[in-house]
């Protein structure tokens, strides 16, 4: 595998994206497309300039929902994952149900949450957490099972207790998988929060998008989309960064290494 420098890695996607935006700008101007239908990128930038107070206010709301929902998903996912791992009965009873529950589109539960918990923060957090829960729980279960059997036998031969084997082998072996579950979960959580807001809310980017669309302020809708994309990328990168710092040994894994 060739090692590209950061510049080499980023230059082509950046050029492509710039080209696309330029083409978009030019096409919209030539065709004289109405702004309410498809605003040019310059109009979207203009919306950032004029609406920044509004955008920041609603971004903050959505970000809080995402972070609280993700936090809840993380705690619940890891707890349930450990519970499933530690009990055969729980594994047999809960694990198939969790897998099966993925056939239910979680966002479809949003209207129910609205009925049960109203228009406040709670239903948004619950929807967000429900969506983020699955990848974390499943990866925790898989990760805890991924501990090398021979390493576990070695610890046993040293007289290690079940708790020591859990702490010294199974948890460290599970962490990379838990992190990759968390990376997937956080992007899901952004989707969950916005959807919950679309269904019924008085603030947040989802709410702002819906209101702006109803008023044909299409450039502001695009501005919201840009912010959501950046939020997803930013949170994903943040978890990737934490993973890199928390698991430095991952960089040195080779085929010959165990």
């Amino acid at each position, binding site marked *: 595998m060739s090692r590209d420098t950061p510049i080499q890695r980023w230059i082509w996607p950046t050029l492509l994206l710039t080209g696309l935006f330029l083409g978009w700008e030019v096409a919209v101007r030539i065709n004289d497309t109405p702004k309410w239908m498809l605003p040019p990128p310059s109009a979207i930038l203009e919306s950032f300039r004029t609406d920044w107070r509004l955008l920041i206010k609603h971004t903050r709301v959505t970000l809080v929902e995402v972070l609280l929902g993700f936090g809840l998903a993380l705690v619940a996912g890891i707890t349930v994952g450990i519970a499933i791992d530690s009990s055969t009965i729980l594994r047999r009873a809960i694990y198939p149900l969790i897998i099966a529950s993925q056939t239910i589109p979680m966002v479809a539960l949003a209207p129910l949450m609205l009925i049960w918990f109203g228009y406040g923060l709670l239903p948004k957090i619950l929807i967000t957490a429900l969506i983020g829960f699955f990848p974390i729980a499943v990866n925790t279960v898989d990760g805890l099972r991924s501990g090398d059997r021979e390493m576990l036998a070695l*610890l046993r*031969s040293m007289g*290690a207790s079940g708790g*020591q084997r859990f702490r010294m082998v199974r948890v*460290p072996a599970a962490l990379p998988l838990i992190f990759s579950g968390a990376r997937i979960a956080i992007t899901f959580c952004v989707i969950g929060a916005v959807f919950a807001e679309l269904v019924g809310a008085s603030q947040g980017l989802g709410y702002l998008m819906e209101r702006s669309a109803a008023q044909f302020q299409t450039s502001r809708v695009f501005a919201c989309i840009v912010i959501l994309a950046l939020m997803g990328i930013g949170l994903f990168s943040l978890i990737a960064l934490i993973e890199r710092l928390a698991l430095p040994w991952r960089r040195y894994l080779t085929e010959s*290494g*165990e």
Partner: protein
Amino acid sequence: MSFSLQANDHAQLALRDVEASYVERGETLLALTSISFEIADGEFVALIGPSGSGKSTLLDIISGLFPETGGTVHIAGHPFSLEARLGQSAYMRQRDLLLPWRSALGNAALALEVHGIPKREALAHAAERFPAFGLTGFEDAYPGQLSGGMRQRVAFLRTMLADRPLLLLDEPFGALDALNRVALQAWLLDLWEAERRSVLLVTHDIDEAIFLADRVIVLSSRPGTIVYEEPISLARPRHRSVLASDAFFAHRSRLAGALGLLDEAIAGAGR
């Protein structure tokens, strides 16, 4: 008090009629039968035999990882049940089994931590031994950064630091290339001569067995049972030069004979 038949109470390890079987696809296969031998305090015993003779299973039984179906295992003169044997010996397998998330130092100190020694103390104790194991400067390296020979030395250090009077070594040089192998054999010999422990070494290499051991035990193919024992008369401390001595060749031809006869017996049985 143990009621071992003609058991030497000074034996570090004594096996009496140990038998083991395992179930494969619903069929019970006898892996080991009538295994009886002793290892004296500070004695180095090598175990050789064809693959599938249950050598590794025997080490698993002694370490407490695999249940015997018959016989008794005595450690330091007392019979030990399967569970009680866990933690009694220091077991090293062919794969180095270093934990990739622990530094070389953390891996070396693993057994100490398992035995309840506070982490800081365990690490300090392990660090003292790094120079003797040729690992100075690599304390903080992760296993993924170390060469095969170094990884194996870290695994040896971890095994030695477990501080058990009985070492069980399952082909510890098996994964190394020839040069590393020879160097590490000589190194292990020096180490063992400096601090005598009882060793049971499993190997498929006759030369390695003779070079290192006081006594070589030959197992038959499955079900594994002891078919031959050769006391090794080579003086200690030993150097590579003994590999070219007449005494070495005499041991070698007798052991090869013991193994070769087995091969003929297998061939004669129509395999």
